[in-house]
């Protein structure tokens, strides 16, 4: 067992208390990763890391909301510009009823699922940068 002791300053020749720490713990503490400290202490590096994460998450959210805007938001315009779309029937149901009443819900859930997947990946990437062995 390799331990080490510290002599606190100003204690003279009488080392009243000795602090003993296990080697592994001490080693871990010695290489406390700098990115983590950058974050906690709000250095410019930490600031840039957080900005990068925020930008990635926002870009993802905006991209997926554009998918919804083009997928669903364009429908009223489509129905107004091309009224014939309303007359098309699929299995006896007019297309607008099918699109709005049934298919829009799985579409929304699909977009949501994709967002959760990618947002978690962004966070894992961020965590990996912070936690990477920086030696």
């Amino acid at each position, binding site marked *: 067992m390799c331990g080490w002791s510290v002599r606190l300053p100003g204690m003279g020749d009488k080392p009243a208390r000795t602090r003993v720490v296990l080697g592994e713990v001490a080693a871990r503490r010695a290489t406390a990763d700098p990115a*983590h400290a950058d*974050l*906690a202490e*709000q250095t410019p590096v*930490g*600031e840039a890391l*957080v*900005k990068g*994460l*925020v930008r990635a*998450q*926002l870009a993802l*959210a905006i991209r*997926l*909301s554009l998918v*919804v805007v083009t997928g*669903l*938001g364009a429908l*009223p*315009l489509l*129905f*107004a510009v091309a*009224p014939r779309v*309303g*007359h098309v029937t699929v299995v006896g149901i*007019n297309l*607008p*009823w099918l699109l*709005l*009443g*049934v298919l*829009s*819900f*799985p579409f*929304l*859930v699909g*977009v*949501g*699922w994709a*967002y*959760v997947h990618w*947002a*978690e990946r962004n*966070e894992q990437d*961020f*965590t990996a940068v*912070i*936690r990477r062995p920086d030696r």
Partner: protein
Amino acid sequence: MNPYVVPSLVVVVLVTVGIGAYGLRFARTTSDFLVASRSVSPSWNAAAISGEYLSAASFLGIAGLVLRYGVDVLWYPVGFAAGYLALLLFVAAPLRRSGAFTLPDFCEVRLRSPVLRRIATVFVVFIGCLYLVPQLQGAGLTFTTVTGGSYWWGALLVGLVVTTNVALGGMRAITFVQAFQYWLKLTALAVPVIFLVLQWQSDGRPAVTPQAGTTFAVTTTVTIQQNATINFDGQETAVRAGDELTFPAGAPVPRVSTVGAHFGADWLLPGSDKSLFATYSLILATFLGTMGLPHVLVRFYTNPDGASARRTTLVVLALVGCFYLLPTLYGVLGRIYTPQLLMTGRTDAVVLLLPEAALGGGELGRVLGALVTAGALAAFLSTSSGLLTSVAGVVFTDVLHADRGGSVRDFRLATALAAIVPMALSLYVSDMDVSRVVGLAFAVAASSFCPLLVLGIWWRGLTDVGAAAGVLAGGGAAMAAVLVTVLGPPLTGWPAQLIGQPAAWTVPLAFAVMVIGSLLTSRRIPREVGATMLRLHAPESLRL
């Protein structure tokens, strides 16, 4: 009267109070009351959020609107569901990580402004009341429709059950109650619809929009509600309130001048009389309004961390989407089996009346009729419980100033205070238009809290002055539009569209004022904005 209705209503109330009392055994501290000690699992929480969200407007209103107006109003359920996608994309995880409990708390965390906090409090209470009054009214109207009892008793009964439950159990109990009520509501629509579709098949699949126009399926006696003129084969005939008209099976349904409804191609095809402006305004209000509803937001604080808040929202989106497949079917089948509602104008009752109308007066029809009535009661109970909890939470922390060391007794007092005003209003203002007010609540939320949350979470440059100006301009304009719509004279033409569906101009207004105001006062950007952003967006696993 249907003999199964009263027992089923009693069962719903007893189970609600029972689960509330069961939850009470676990609610010991103020934290339990307010946020269920942040220990609710995502699946429970998602069912609870969905149960809380599916109000009278969803359970009864959508089917009624579809029966009346057809394909154009399908944007309501789509928007009500899509609101959760917007919430998921822009708000869910960072909001949970902010660690705040109410919207005013968020203002404090992000912008450190007591003035903005006070403004947010006013809007939470306004939106809460705006949403609570129609719930209680809907309860009263359902009570009248189903039991023939008085409107007052229905509103009072639901109001008292909800107040007692929230005051005794708080959020912890409400979580279990809400989760139960989601599944009850889904069952109450899903089981009868199976029998209704089978009945429609065995009737030889009658057309929903027959060539000759909508007809009565069976001999029907209709009681006219208001003095009006009726169009019989192109001839206008005057009728008076209380007149009883009997139509044989197969007779065409005449148009009544006082009831706005669509027939034939207008009903079947999109874009009949609504302008594109109104449609897009509705889409904007519902897509962006959900994230600003206080009773929805309050529940996100019960998730343990940001990632689980995200997953909870996704489950909610799926649960809510699943539910919204059903009301459309009721509206469509109502076209065949309950066309008399198109003459009386009480289309909101279609869900309640359809099982007995389609399946005949036999046991099956009655049991299913009682089931949908129980579901409707669950809808009123759960949404008003959630609203009351959130409004009471805000009153508790911001009006009674009990945020530090507040006792459970203070929370109960806050609940009573928050319940009195909407209950009194619902008893005295009984002729307010229910479904329109719910849509307007979305518009106010979309033009006040949506820009505040989205810009607050994603833009470092937001300042307290800019935020307050944006909320006051956008939310204030929407609030004014609501008051004019509800209290003012009927409008026509463009003003009617701008005031009746304000979101298309109030939401961009709020965003624009907030951004410009913040840019002009950029000196006031909070110094610790970097730390706040880190807290909102960094995963908890880093334990910073």
